């Protein structure tokens, strides 16, 4: 993953940074509200939102990397990514059905 000029992973680094900032802000707000009013609904909402955003951030990264590989016609990489995505779908299904 070399940072070549024009590389989407470099150009869209703001998207990756944005996902980090989003879950960081949600956690910071949630934690401040939690300290001020322990267990309040608002604090838990912010904290749960942060958790979901955090878990979504690797998926954003895979999406950007995949778009870059489509651009480069790196079909081997895309096939490998598709297998990982299928595995993650299975994980989500297990989480939803065994909770």
């Amino acid at each position, binding site marked *: 993953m070399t940072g070549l000029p024009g590389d989407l992973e470099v150009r869209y680094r703001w998207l990756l940074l944005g996902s980090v900032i989003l879950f960081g802000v949600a956690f910071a707000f*949630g934690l401040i509200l939690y*300290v001020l009013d322990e267990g309040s609904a608002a604090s838990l909402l912010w904290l749960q939102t942060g958790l979901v955003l955090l*878990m979504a951030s690797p998926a954003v990264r895979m999406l950007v990397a995949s778009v870059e590989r489509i651009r480069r016609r790196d079909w081997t990489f895309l096939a490998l990514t598709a297998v990982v995505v299928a595995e993650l779908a299975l994980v989500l299904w*297990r989480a939803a059905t065994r909770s």
Partner: protein
Amino acid sequence: MPLLVIPIIMAAGAVAGCLGALLGIGGGVFLIPLLNVGLGLELPIAAGISLMTVIATSSIVAAGSANRDVINLRLGILLQIPAVAGGLIGAESVDALSARTLSMIFAIVTGVIAIVMLTRLDRRNVILDGSVQPGSLGGRYYEEESGSPIVYRLRRLPAALGISFSGGILSGLLGIGGGILQVPALNAWCGVPMRAAAATTAAMIGVTALGSAPIYYSRGRIVAPLAAAAVLGVLAGSRAGLWMSPRARARWLKLLMAVVLASVSVTYFYKAATL
């Protein structure tokens, strides 16, 4: 839950994030003993919180510009396949294993890797001839430490896949990133330089953690305020780790990792013996 715990966990997250970004091991291996042994949280709860910090560390490494040319994405996505499968199996197996068994697994794995690291402190897995082709799964980057281009080829692909699968299982069972196993093994057995192994692993462990994190989340094993405190600490600490990474000598990185792993191993052998 006493509110005093929140700044303690935040500080622990900062240390874990710094060492995790520096060593490419997610930081969970430092956080779990503190949460589990230090604060008395159950191992699956500590693991759930740790998984969140692993994802955060990995996202920060991937979003940063440092080490970008060292990350081997093609190798990373290939190793991700067995790692995610292992993560799912590990998360589904937690309920079947006792705390004593989990502690013993942690102790044995960390102890073995510490010994492997100590025996290979001065060995390098790089080709100093910059004109040599690295192959489809190898890599090439410029190393500040030696001031020369570094080329490496991947050796023993089946071993790399097996290591990633095992790392994924450990991630799902114990909440560590899997890098604790993968970084030293890729370096020692598969010919990947320490810095490339650490950077590639740090970028991929977030996806590995996704192999088990949703299952922990759905079973209520991720305590949101504690996870938030740990992640915020990691956000601060990992920046320091990323700054230090290009400046640290490979020998010292290996030595630091070995010392940390040995300490964790002793802690968990003691814990397993006293449960």
